[in-house]
């Protein structure tokens, strides 16, 4: 058994290691070392917890067993999961953190003596407040992440679910959570604790159902943030520095990512959270525009255009992930490079279903990361490029965002794809994207539509390039 002071110092060390883990992600070279720091921090935290309790009786065996069961499941998932399913995986993992926070809070509420928080029915006021916050946020994270998971997995429709009185209802529930916390702290009633948990689960569910599929990057980041705050709340209850530091890190990390994603769509955080985007304005503009002439071509035309180009910029989007076209795409690029054509990739901040989604898929297909550029880095290059190859992206290339103040996406930063000499746009049909608006790019003179499955089309182009 080690002293409380010594274990506190070790918890601090593991907190610092977690900071270094995030710091390592500032560049791909240092990132692997960063991940190692994270693992080390975790090992220290767990070992110190065992040593500080010093109870290696039969209960210890069960701890190891449960640890092992969870660990094996986790390792199995991590090993098996395809890279395209990363958003679902992260959402699923968030729900587990949330639920774990809830369980720890329940456990502490039922047996406060073990945590040094007082006796049942007479828990220290500060601890009870911290515990309630941790439990409530944890519960919201859990049910919210479950919904996000179901939507990403396609089990639940990705379209927003809205009903009348939704916002007042949510506001009412949020207020009731605050009142319940207050009552719980003044009465210490366990019934109120369970009600608080139930209501928190409910609000997590209600908060996420009105948010549509393509807004998932914001939702996932937000839930990431919540899971951090839940951990921090529990950290305060347990008076554990590692947990407090980590909670703060994760909380601010998720908040920053949500901010970046919102900025990428030029929408306010509240606009995304209140949901229902793109559900209503679908029909208004599409009816008359459908008549405009569209040039469409086949793989042969596309191969011809690219063969005569000296530089090509690839614009991937969620459709590439759906079609699993990243490997086929890289093969096409390899062939282009053999013909001495310069190729780079342009990634919009909200391309895909989670922050950095496209980058991971391209990395999986062995695309070197120094060929992949962010919007600000590459946007000026479109004017000098010969061909833009849009694969699975839509709204993020729509020039309407720059020209039409009436458009719901006006002001959103977009890739200046139309400035290229020619644009190849791989898409199944002319249907509008998530925002429910027509893409003006389809009707430009220099756009050639390639109507096909992204993967098949890319493979065919490669064949025609040879």
């Amino acid at each position, binding site marked *: 058994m080690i002293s409380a002071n010594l274990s506190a110092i070790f918890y601090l060390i593991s907190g610092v290691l*977690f*900071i270094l*883990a*995030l710091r390592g*992600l*500032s*560049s791909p070279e240092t990132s*692997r070392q960063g991940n190692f720091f*994270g693992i080390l*921090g*975790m090992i220290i935290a767990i070992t110190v917890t065992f040593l500080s309790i010093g109870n290696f*009786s039969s209960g210890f065996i*069960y701890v190891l067993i449960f*640890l092992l*069961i*969870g*660990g*094996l*499941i*986790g390792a199995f*998932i991590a090993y098996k999961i395809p890279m395209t399913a*990363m958003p679902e995986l*992260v959402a699923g*993992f968030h729900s*587990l*953190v949330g*639920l*774990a*926070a809830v*369980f*720890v809070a329940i*456990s*502490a509420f039922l*047996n406060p003596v*073990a945590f040094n928080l007082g006796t049942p029915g007479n828990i220290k006021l500060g601890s009870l407040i911290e515990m309630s916050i941790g439990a409530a946020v944890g519960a919201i994270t859990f049910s919210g992440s479950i919904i996000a998971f179901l939507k990403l997995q396609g089990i639940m429709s990705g379209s927003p679910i809205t009903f009348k009185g939704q916002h007042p209802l949510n506001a009412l529930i949020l207020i009731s959570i605050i009142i319940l916390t207050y009552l719980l702290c003044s009465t210490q009633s366990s019934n109120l604790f369970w009600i608080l948990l139930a209501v928190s689960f409910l609000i997590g569910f209600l908060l996420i159902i009105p948010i549509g599929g393509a807004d998932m990057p914001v939702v996932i980041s937000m839930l*990431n943030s919540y*899971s*951090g705050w839940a951990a921090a709340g*529990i950290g305060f209850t347990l008076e554990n*520095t*590692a*947990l*407090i*530091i980590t*909670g703060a*890190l*994760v*909380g601010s990390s998720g908040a*920053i*990512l949500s901010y970046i994603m919102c900025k990428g769509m030029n929408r306010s955080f509240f606009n995304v959270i209140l949901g229902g985007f793109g559900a209503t304005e679908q029909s208004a503009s599409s009816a008359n525009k459908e008549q405009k002439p569209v040039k469409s071509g086949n793989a042969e035309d596309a191969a011809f255009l690219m063969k005569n180009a000296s530089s090509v910029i690839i614009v991937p989007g969620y459709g590439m992930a759906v079609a699993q076209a990243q490997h086929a795409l890289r093969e096409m690029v390899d062939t282009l490079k053999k013909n001495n054509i310069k190729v780079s990739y342009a990634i919009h901040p909200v391309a895909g279903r*989670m922050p*950095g989604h496209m*980058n*991971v898929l391209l*990395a999986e297909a*062995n695309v*070197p*990361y*120094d*060929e992949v550029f962010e919007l600000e880095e590459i946007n000026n290059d479109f004017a000098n490029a010969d061909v833009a190859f849009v694969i699975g992206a839509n709204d993020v290339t729509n020039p309407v965002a720059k020209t039409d103040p009436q458009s719901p996406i006006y002001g959103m930063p977009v890739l200046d794809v139309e400035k290229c000499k020619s644009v190849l746009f791989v898409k199944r049909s002319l249907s509008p994207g998530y925002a429910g608006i027509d893409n003006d790019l389809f009707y430009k003179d220099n756009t050639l539509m390639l109507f096909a499955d992204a993967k098949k089309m890319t493979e065919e182009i490669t064949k025609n390039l040879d």
Partner: protein
Amino acid sequence: MEIDPFIFRLSIFILSIFIGYYVVWSVTPSLHTPLMSVTNAISSVIIVGAIIAGLAGDSNSIFNTSSIFGFLAISLAAVNIFGGFLVTQRMLAMYKKKKKEK
């Protein structure tokens, strides 16, 4: 008058938010997905609370309501720890620089 230890914890918390703010802004956008999976893994350090809860039962009754929730939380957090770190490792291993050509 002595300062409540809560204030010290609050100070750590607030300062960590600022550290998080600056550290996360310096993360390159191409690594945002690994960032999410690794934050996921580290937030599962909540397992320390779960372990305390799990070991709280006495030698006569290892399983009581409180410790069962502890044990369950251990498993949940462990899924995240192993899953989160390993999947991050897997992703990061894929990020490669351009090979020198010719």
